[in-house]
């Protein structure tokens, strides 16, 4: 599948933003969320910027972005529609939560309640995003539970890594320590989920073959000797993308190392070191490494996924 930059940016950025919101709500419910206006503006501002930026970037790959509002109408059947609707509805509790946490417009107990509702909407949105991919039978690499687990774990994981740094930066030692523990657990879970996702791609039996695509399988091996067109076409550009496939192993190593291993070491060191400049530095390193790693992971998620239509163009099995 063609890895559209707008979709990679959307899923990574809004995933991190929703992840931040989820943990902010958890901390608020536990009574551990520091209430300070400047910090609040920055941390909620960043979370909203990541979510909104991601959602906006996802409209860039549309042929008719001005009609994007129509995408909310088919929630009865379409996961994409459900995702859009959940994202929009989620802004209400998340916005109220931010107002309470930053400006104290109401009691924090109420803030925690709307925060938890907002966090539930955020998780639901991530789940709907994952189902857009996991529901596609045409792409067996995606059509399984590991895709759902990946989106549900990686967004909150990235959000926790961001928050650990921000709390440390503003000197909220208790909250930083709590977020580091959460980030460490999520990073380990993220690594496990991605390793199992890749394992699943490597070991699952093909779903469709050139034989079933043409119905000629009973005659032997089916090979295309004549293409319908001499030059490129939409199907090959969108679904037949294979540039990164030959670099798959290298990208997998980059994603594993930078997305998980380096952040795990940095966050663990952060738990060992006393708060201070060195600790801040390794925590910042975990944020940067994680962003590069997750981008590589998401790129690979698309580039490595084989689509059934390629069976008509020479692929033997998907």
């Amino acid at each position: 599948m063609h890895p559209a930059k707008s979709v990679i940016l959307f899923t990574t950025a809004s995933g991190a933003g929703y992840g931040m919101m989820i943990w902010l709500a958890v901390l608020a419910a536990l009574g551990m969320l520091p209430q300070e206006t400047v910090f609040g503006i920055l941390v909620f501002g960043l979370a909203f910027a990541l979510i909104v930026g991601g959602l906006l970037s996802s409209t860039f790959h549309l042929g008719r972005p001005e009609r994007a509002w129509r995408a909310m109408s088919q929630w009865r059947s379409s996961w994409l529609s459900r995702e859009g609707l959940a994202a929009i509805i989620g802004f209400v509790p998340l916005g109220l939560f931010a107002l309470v946490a930053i400006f104290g417009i109401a009691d924090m107990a109420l803030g925690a309640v709307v925060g938890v509702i907002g966090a539930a909407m955020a998780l639901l949105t991530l789940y709907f995003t994952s189902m857009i991919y996991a529901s596609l039978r045409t792409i067996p690499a995606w059509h399984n539970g590991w895709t759902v687990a990946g989106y549900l774990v990686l967004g909150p994981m990235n959000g926790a890594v961001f928050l650990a740094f921000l709390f440390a930066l503003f000197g909220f030692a208790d909250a930083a320590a709590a977020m580091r523990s959460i980030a460490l657990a999520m990073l380990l879970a993220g690594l496990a989920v991605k390793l199992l996702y890749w394992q699943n791609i490597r070991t699952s039996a093909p779903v469709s073959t050139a034989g079933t695509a043409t119905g000629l399988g009973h005659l032997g091996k089916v090979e295309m000797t004549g293409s319908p067109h001499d030059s490129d076409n939409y199907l090959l550009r969108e679904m037949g993308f294979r540039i990164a496939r030959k670099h798959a192993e290298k990208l997998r190593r980059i994603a594993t190392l930078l997305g998980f291993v380096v952040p795990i070491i940095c966050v663990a060191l952060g738990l060992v070191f006393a708060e201070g400049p060195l600790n801040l530095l390794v925590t910042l390193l975990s944020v940067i490494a994680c962003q590069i790693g997750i981008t590589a992971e998401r790129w690979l998620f698309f580039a490595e996924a084989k689509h059934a239509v390629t069976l008509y163009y020479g692929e033997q099995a998907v």
Partner: protein
Amino acid sequence: MTSLPETTAKKLGLVVDLDICVGCHACAVNCKEWNASAKSAPLTDYDPYGKKPDGVWFNRIHTYETLDEAGHGQTVHFPRSCLHCEDAPCVTVCPTGASYKREEDGIVLVNEDICIGCKLCSWACPYGAREYDENEGVMKKCTLCVDKIYNKNLPEESRVPACVSTCPAGARSFGDLGDPESEVSKLVAARGGYDLMPEQETKPVNKYLPPRPRQDGRTADKAPRMLASADESTEGAGVIARWVDKILS
């Protein structure tokens, strides 16, 4: 609404006979001609007269070669277009309602006025039936010539999809595959018509008829042997040929 209809009154579709198709691409060309000037127009081309022509087509003709373990091969020409599936995944994934399946005849269509060009339907279709029009920013697909098959301005015999009316070999048939008594349904039953990628659970309406078994190895060997002996022997030749042979030798 992009929920699929429970049932459709008719299941209009195509039957493609892979035993007859000669791979001439006439169906693809006539499809392009009709749809570039009718309801679906424009059917965009990019760089049509340049070095890398590209564009939107509803019909694509592949050629495959099969090879079995005994080393016997077969060439099969294979037209590929929308199968107007009963459980069309391209319809249910659509977030806007632009993609729909008609209750009256089962034809799967795109309402180009509300399509946002998210391309998700093309991801959901295993058959490559949907192509994105970069100029219009919307998805396009085979309409089963909905603007031709019901067109009262055309003579009755012309009210079939363009690919069917143009096929010089008669490899394509059109009709109601939901009616077991229809000509197409009888054809499918008689020839063992099959679904493409049934494991994708799309329940295609269009059916493909398999190529008939080729002649066995012995018959295949005969061609070169006959050619070799034709130079030498007059056995079985006509009176004049034998007479000319006798004079000249």
